[in-house]
């Protein structure tokens, strides 16, 4: 039984069904990525897990515990938003200390100091502790936001596209840092993104979300090598996969209008997917 699980979660808004019977699971210590284009339902999923939205049906299990009725405070998760994570009126130190100062925890100030400095050290922001958040750059702000999540040592990190608002180069370096941090801390992380490069390089396992439905779940290798349908196939990989219409006859698959033919693998498939390194691979494809 997986420690973190969503079982048949559905969420309907007045105009649209955001999540339709979504189920996936991951283990403690895993870096799990939810990948999908805008509007696929990624943020809604995160908010349901955090308790900021109520789902219409299904169960949410965190660390083996059913939390569907728990308040956000009771769930012991940390949320890193895409932007507006930091309180502009406080210094960096106070921002990092904020989660620990919550009346729920009642931590003494000297313990707080130790924990804050520890977290600042890990994210290399010790020199920024006295600054006001308004004076920080975008990358520094996101580091502090991540620091604020770390400082509590929660059982689950929820990250909603934290790198999307950063410059391309900054994104690259922070990506590596985040992955490294996660591996050394062993923290369970659910990371949401629309960027497939981020997904492939950072994830232990990926779930691809398409209009509120899970299109495929698996390791980055599986998603890349054996996409379950054309949506996933086209989403992942730079440059994009080539999809050519083909017809099957007598055990071979022949690309329409050309003389390219490949031995047909099994069952019914009419799209073949050669990759850019010129290896012809026929993948099982869904009609449509």
């Amino acid at each position, binding site marked *: 039984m997986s420690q973190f699980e969503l079982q048949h979660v559905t969420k309907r808004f007045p105009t649209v069904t955001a999540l339709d019977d979504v189920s996936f699971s991951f283990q403690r210590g895993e870096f799990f990525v939810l990948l999908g284009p*805008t509007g696929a339902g990624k943020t809604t999923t995160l908010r349901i897990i955090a308790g900021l939205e109520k789902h219409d049906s299904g169960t949410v299990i965190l660390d083996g515990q059913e939390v569907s009725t728990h308040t956000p405070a009771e769930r012991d998760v940390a949320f890193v938003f895409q932007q507006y994570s930091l309180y502009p009126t406080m210094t960096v130190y106070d921002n990092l200390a904020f989660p620990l100062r919550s009346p729920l925890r009642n931590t003494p100030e000297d313990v707080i100091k130790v924990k804050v400095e520890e977290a600042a050290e890990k994210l290399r922001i010790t020199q920024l502790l006295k600054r006001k958040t308004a004076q920080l*750059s975008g990358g520094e702000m996101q580091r502090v936001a991540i620091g604020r999540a770390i400082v509590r040592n929660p059982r689950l990190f929820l990250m909603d596209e934290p790198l999307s608002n950063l410059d*391309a180069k900054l994104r690259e370096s922070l990506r590596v840092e985040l992955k490294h941090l996660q591996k050394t801390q062993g923290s369970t992380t659910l990371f949401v993104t*629309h960027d497939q490069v981020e997904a*492939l390089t950072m994830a232990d396992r990926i779930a691809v979300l398409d209009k509120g439905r899970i299109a495929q779940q698996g390791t*980055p290798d599986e998603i890349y090598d054996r996409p379950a349908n054309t949506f996933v196939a086209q*989403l992942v990989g730079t440059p994009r996969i080539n999809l050519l219409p083909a017809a099957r006859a007598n055990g071979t698959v022949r690309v329409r209008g050309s003389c390219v033919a490949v031995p047909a693998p099994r069952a019914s498939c009419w799209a073949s997917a050669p990759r850019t390194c010129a290896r012809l691979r026929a993948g099982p494809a869904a009609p449509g």
Partner: protein
Amino acid sequence: MATIELQKVEKKFAEAYAVKPLDLTIKDGEFVVLLGPSGCGKTTTLRMISGLETVTSGKILLNGKEVTWRHPSERDMAFVFQFYALYSHLSVRQNIAFPLQAQGVKNDEIERRVKEVVDILRIPHLLRARPGKLSGGDQQRVALARALVRKPAAFLMDEPLGALDAELRESMRAEIKNLHVAQHATTVYVTHDQIEAMAMGDRIVVMSKAEVQQVGTPIEVYYNPANLFVARFIGSPGMNLVKGQYAGGSVSLHGGNRYSVPPAWTSRLGSALGGAPDVILGFRPEAARVSPQGALNGEVYATDMYGGHTVLHVNINENEIVHIRSDRQSSYPMGTKVRFDIDPAMVRFFDPRTEQAVRGENPPSAAAEVS
């Protein structure tokens, strides 16, 4: 059609430089990209060209005529914003027709041009819709249509793809470039994403901290970066830059590695460094190849799977990590010792004191292979 010229254009806020004196000539029909991290001055430069920002000193010329003080509307340039700036209370058709109405063009002419532009951008089905209801990509297409319909002398684009999904960014990149080629329009494009710059630009102006670091074609900027900043900034991941000491034809790196300088460089390296031994060795991830007989060695620290290829993070000493590109089938668990070689045609050297590149005798040809 337009040639844009910037002569010693600078922008200061109080005493601080937002853009240091800049000279740039943009030829007719060229696609020039202003590339750099946040705050480097690229957007300010673009806004000065458009007239939305004043120039502290210097001149801006359009087709040889000075336009430094002309009102933005009189410069015949169209601006495309990152957040579209579409009028949410008007339909798409009215949005596109807006600039023409402002110019006083006749109604049937407006209809004709709107239809033309909407066909080019493949959004005829959206004419009646309100911008608020459209997806990001469609909204940007409408913004492009609105710019295109004016048939301006030049297009100025401020990170137009920044607000889009990664997937959409790729396809819109190709669309914009195609548009540029079909219209033969002079375009100045601002971005912080070097992949975009490399894919789209005829020439790239790399900027950092208000200063131009290098101007060149993508090939030039990639294979012959003028300084450390450009070397690091261009390329994903950027160029590996390793410190070392040069003596007697080879560079000793920290951690025991020794790299033999290729003959093409031995003659000029010593004098270029002014006799000082400190040097920075540069090579791109694809210039290095893992091989059992490699001259350099290190330990695998991490692997990045990109799908079609892998990038190894290799520790060559306790402080320095280099990135080496490898094919996707290779699997290197953490801690594996590897040996690698550097392609002599692709190695570069930099002077650590000036941060400038040491000039090679022959820049490699554009046909240099990238696997």
